[in-house]
């Protein structure tokens, strides 16, 4: 972040006292370490664990669960950027997920395009669909948005099932090759972990950066009180169009991950229940909280995977938890404490 960023918020210690930010980089590092020892330790430990993960995880099954969680993280984070930060109730994340997955499946089975480029194409196409759908979506009042986006989900499903020449219809597109980049081939789920980790980490970093930026605060202002924000000179349309496009791009990346992870793409991975599951995992950890989105993905994907009986009731259980959260703790389990309480 540049030192001349005028919109930068003041820095506070964990106990709430304002502090002067040190000027030299090294002094600043020391200052941060002294102020937030627990948080810094946790982050460092977390990063170390992520790096040694393939070594310490003994079974292929557990590794698989971890990779699946990593695939859901961009979806969850993207959803939360739109719903949590900007307050736009988009409800069709599975549509962008599908666009990314089918793009990756079709390009990797029919062309020789290098796989990293396929990831970028999948991302851009999903982003484009998000951009196009956001134009009518942000013009209509809030409640209409999720019907419009849920409708997009249904359209994408229709196309995936009917346009058999391209998508394979209900049977899907099988035979997606192993992920290959610069001569390196992902031969097992242990290798693919790194691909998923990079994508999830990039999305996480982007979401954190957006949340901390002036743009992030613009979105929050629009969410909290659109009229007041507009009266303060904030444009209401463009920021929300962009955040929907960014979130769709994250969905597209997740789709490409899914395609290369499974080696197969079919319409059943993208039905409306998936959109709702993504919505749930984004909200359950807190509106606008990146940590919360990650926790939500882990809670709703890994936990039911490891405890089979939870699998069938996870949507409903999540629903009940969310209703209780909305009533008692609208900012979620790990809701960001920096935003004002949403209930006026």
């Amino acid at each position: 972040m540049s030192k001349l960023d005028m919109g930068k918020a003041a820095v506070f210690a964990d106990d709430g006292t304002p502090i002067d930010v040190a000027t030299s980089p090294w002094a600043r590092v020391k200052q941060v370490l002294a102020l937030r020892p627990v948080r810094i330790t946790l982050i460092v430990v977390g990063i170390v664990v992520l790096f040694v993960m393939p070594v310490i995880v003994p079974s292929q099954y557990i590794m698989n669960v971890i990779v699946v969680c990593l695939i859901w993280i961009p979806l969850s984070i993207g959803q939360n950027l739109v719903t949590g930060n900007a307050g736009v109730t988009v409800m069709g994340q599975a549509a962008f997920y599908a666009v990314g997955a089918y793009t990756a499946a079709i390009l990797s089975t029919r062309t020789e395009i290098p796989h990293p480029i396929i990831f970028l194409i999948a991302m851009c196409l999903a982003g484009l669909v998000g951009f196009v759908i956001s134009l009518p979506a942000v013009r209509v009042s809030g409640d209409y948005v999720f019907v419009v986006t849920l409708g997009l989900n249904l359209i994408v499903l229709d196309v995936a099932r009917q346009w058999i020449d391209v998508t394979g219809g209900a049977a899907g597109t099988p035979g997606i090759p192993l992920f290959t980049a610069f001569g390196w081939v992902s031969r097992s789920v242990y290798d693919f972990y790194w691909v998923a980790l990079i994508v999830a980490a990039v999305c996480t970093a982007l979401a954190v950066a957006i949340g901390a930026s002036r743009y992030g605060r613009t979105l929050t202002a629009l969410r909290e009180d659109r009229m007041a924000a507009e009266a303060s000179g904030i444009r209401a349309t463009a920021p929300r169009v962009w955040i929907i496009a960014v979130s769709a791009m994250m969905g597209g990346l997740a789709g490409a991950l899914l395609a290369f992870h499974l080696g197969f793409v079919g319409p059943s991975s993208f039905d409306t229940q998936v959109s709702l599951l993504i919505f749930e995992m984004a909200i359950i950890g807190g509106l606008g909280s990146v940590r919360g989105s990650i926790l939500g993905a882990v809670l709703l994907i890994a936990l039911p995977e490891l405890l089979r009986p939870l699998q069938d009731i996870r949507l409903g259980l999540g629903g009940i938890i969310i209703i209780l959260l909305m009533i008692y703790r609208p900012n979620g389990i790990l809701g960001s404490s920096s935003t004002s309480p949403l209930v006026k």
Partner: protein
Amino acid sequence: MGSELMQQIVNGLAAGAIYALIAVGYNLVFGLLELINFSHGHVYMVGTFVVLSLMDTGIPFPVAILGGLVIGAGLGMAVERFAYRPLRGANRIIPTVSAVAATLVLENAANIIWGPAARRFDTPLPKGSIEVLGVTLTTMHGIVFGTAAVLAFGLWLLVEKTPWGRSVRAIRDDLPTAQLMGIAVNRIVSSVYALGSILGVLAGVLFAAYYSTVYVGMGFTGTLNAFTAAVIGGIGSIKGSFIGGLTLGVVQALAAGFLSSGYMNAITFVILILFLIARPRGVVGRAEVSRA
């Protein structure tokens, strides 16, 4: 060709009458609190499944319908009481999120109880048909049109001519003032949710009987169709629900008959977008849609 076209229109009107009944239940609630009742389609689906289950145990069709209506009304009131009422007055995104969450609970419960597969729905309703000018009219057509017309008239009487309807209109116009005038707002809101759910379940039974099938997914398609019908006709307007529902039914039937039935959802959605952009208040929408 001419009679084929007429046949598609008649079929579309029947589907549209069912959409109208779902939409009117949805619109009643929306008009009252301007809160999107996302779980409406699911209440309609669960109620219809209840009717099916009751019939499976040998209970006669009319009693089974009654059972479905009671459960549907109870569900509608429960959703209002636990998921919406505690959040009245909160930032709009909060009740919207909890409405979606309530839907997830219903969807999950229905999937566990009845399973994701479509179930056959057989009724003892008479099956027969007559041919008029090359168009086949079945008994089901008659039942659907008759029920929709009776319910539309009854609803109009209820909202425009009874003390209860006056309270509903008062709350719709200004909730705090209505409360100050001594209207028991919570009780009226509760009863509107019950009525909306009852209309929904009736529409669900008609839908199931007309297509001889029930499935969990009809909750979402119900919501989408009801919402589109409401947008076409005008959000919050009872008359608009009927105009919108019938229009949507006919357009869908024509599109399915002459284009492709696989793209039904896509067609509905495109109509919805066009209306949202061109006429966001619908054909007969109330002038002031949003007070937010």
